[in-house]
């Protein structure tokens, strides 16, 4: 093996640099980084004008799926999906394994042809166009770096296939290497790189083609937790800078919440809910979404009365809770409620609030930053609550303690009703 042992410090140094440039808001004015930033922001011919960082996503449509269905033998992987992806948007397809999110991505890439329905990119029907003629590039879950080529040759591959002249090719490869903080590593062989570096090569190789849409298939799943979080922020920032539409597939709900402009929650080949991270988290539209994103106490009950401002719901477990009347449709009689565990306030003395239940702590689970408490408030109703970890304090919660659970009316979300 050639000399450089690629010290583990090198990558963390890169990561640290990347992190510091993220954290320092003045970085754009720094003389050293000015150049780099300028060339990151150089308008590229094949790409739309780039919005400034933090600029709102445009309302123009980049990708449109119309009734797209994909069947494999007897299995329907994607079931009549309609979806509009905006120009410059970071859209995440989120769902458990086997939900069809990867098939959806493969349909966009052109590796699968829809059984029925249409896929339009910038208004052009690409449903039957093979992957090598689509202005779409993918970052593969396994990275799929060509082992027989150097880092540079890997990144130049797409440009070579598109007959980009040598001089421009070299310049763009250098630019791409700098973009993903791998400048100077172009001559390396893939097996000489760490997992995180390989991931960056895969990203550079796709971005250098200046795709209209960049597809990312769980690209961070193989990285360790710390590096992964750094990469999440970095990817997000990169996407903002370049203004390229990103379609990101993940099963990790936290990752989706951190990175996305909008999230499409996929369940059994359909879009269960489409919305921003906060919409999806705070106003889940189905039991599946409420349960899949974060954690939730899901409770069924009858709507007993309403005074126009608040309504009373009697849970099947016999407990009554007050919810916002505005959340209920007139005529509904049943409701499914969701209460986030961190929205339950635990006190030792009875607070003067609407929704307040006395209970006993049945279990206390240490989860690092948070403590998870299981509190029995009725003989068949146990609530899950999250409190900041206090186990080191003398007022810590203990198993068997009698406590009060208080929930603000606004924090009880009506997920479904009929």
């Amino acid at each position: 093996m050639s000399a450089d042992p690629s010290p583990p410090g090198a990558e963390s140094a890169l990561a640290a640099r990347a992190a510091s440039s993220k954290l320092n808001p003045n970085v754009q004015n720094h003389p050293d980084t000015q150049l780099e930033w300028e060339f990151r922001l150089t308008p590229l011919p094949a790409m739309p004008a780039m919005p400034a960082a933090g600029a709102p996503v445009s309302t123009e449509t980049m990708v449109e799926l119309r009734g797209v269905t994909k069947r494999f033998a007897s299995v329907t992987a994607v079931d009549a999906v309609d979806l509009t992806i905006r120009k410059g948007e970071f859209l995440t397809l989120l769902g458990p394994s086997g939900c069809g999110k990867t098939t959806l991505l493969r349909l966009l890439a052109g590796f699968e042809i829809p059984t029925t329905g249409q896929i339009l990119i910038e208004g052009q029907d690409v449903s039957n166009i093979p992957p090598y003629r689509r202005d779409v590039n993918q970052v593969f879950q396994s990275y799929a770096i060509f082992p027989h080529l150097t880092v540079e040759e890997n990144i130049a591959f797409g440009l070579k296939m598109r007959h980009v002249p040598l001089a421009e090719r070299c310049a763009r490869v250098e630019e791409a290497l700098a973009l993903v903080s791998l400048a100077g590593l172009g001559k390396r062989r893939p097996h000489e790189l760490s997992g995180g570096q390989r991931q960056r090569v895969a990203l550079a190789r796709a971005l250098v083609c200046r795709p209209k849409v960049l597809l990312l298939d769980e690209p961070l799943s193989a990285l360790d937790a710390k590096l992964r979080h750094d990469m999440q922020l970095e990817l997000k920032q990169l996407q903002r800078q370049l203004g390229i539409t990103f379609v990101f597939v993940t099963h990790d709900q936290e990752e989706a919440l951190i990175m996305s402009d909008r999230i499409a929650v996929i369940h059994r080949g359909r879009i269960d809910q489409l919305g921003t991270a906060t919409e999806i988290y705070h106003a889940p539209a189905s039991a599946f979404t409420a349960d899949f994103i974060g954690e939730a106490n899901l409770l069924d009950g009858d709507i007993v009365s309403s005074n126009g401002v608040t309504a009373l719901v009697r849970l099947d477990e016999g407990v009554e809770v007050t919810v916002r009347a505005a959340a209920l449709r007139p005529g509904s009689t049943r409701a499914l409620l969701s209460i986030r565990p961190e929205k339950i306030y635990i006190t030792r003395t009875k607070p003067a609030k609407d929704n307040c239940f006395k209970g006993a702590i049945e279990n206390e689970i240490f989860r690092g930053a948070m403590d998870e408490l299981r509190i029995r408030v009725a003989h068949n109703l146990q609530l899950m609550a999250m409190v900041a970890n206090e186990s080191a304090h003398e007022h810590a919660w203990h198993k068997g303690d009698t406590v009060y659970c208080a929930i603000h009316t606004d924090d009880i979300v009506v997920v479904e009703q009929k």
Partner: protein
Amino acid sequence: MAAPRASTDTSSGAKRAPRTIGWLLLAPLLLWLLAFVVAPTAILFVYSFCQRDELGQVVFSFTGGNYARILDPVYLGIFGRSLWYAALTTALCLVIGYPVGYYIGRSPPARRSLLLLLMMIPFWISFLLRTYAWISLLKGEGLVSSLLQGLHLLAGPLDILYTPTAVVLGLVYTYLPFMILPIFTSAEKLDHSMIEAALDLGAGPVRAFTQVIIPLTKPGIFAGVLLVFVPSIGMFAVTDLMGGAKVPMIGNVIQNQFGQARDWPFGAALGITFLALFAVAFWFLHDRGAEGRR
């Protein structure tokens, strides 16, 4: 290549015990090689510098004359022809065997096993029997000839038996599986996302094949080339039977020296030269193969 080895060496000293066991496990093979490869080769090497008397007995008076004789145009011509036939056989095997090996390697497991089985079935029948079958197929009044004449694709009887065409045909038939198997192994290991990545980056099917699939299956190609080229250059049975001893290859000459001609020292010199050529070819190809794997 050095990378993985270096990394295992850096790990703990617990490597020492397995090393002893490793040698013990290898011992039968090493003894076998010593007794039946190294020793005979050494004897052959010594013989190649000896002379023979009128009765064909080996006389231990040393000379370089046997090697000088190889430079005779007759033998150089046979060497050249052997190289040419072996190269042609290898090229044909590669062209025919690559698609087959690749297809089997990319097939779903059930079909893969079936295809491999089908490919192995002919091996259950004796090699000589199969070669004689070819002879009866190819002869002037044979099946192929009558078929072609019946279809009016051929005016007179087929006249390829006992010609170089028949020899190369026989060689390709004999060694094709040795090309298919290593290519199959390489193709099977090929990560499908590599192909998808090539397509995704704008390579059409042809360029995905030449730029990604071929380089990544290179180890299989090299192994196959080696496994076909080396034995086919020394083949004498097919040349004897299907070439009717009219187009001798180097294998036939060597066989003849140890047989009818009773000139063991010259046969040994031919054998050693042959071995040296293989060693060089192997070293060359193996180096390239290693490069492909990186």
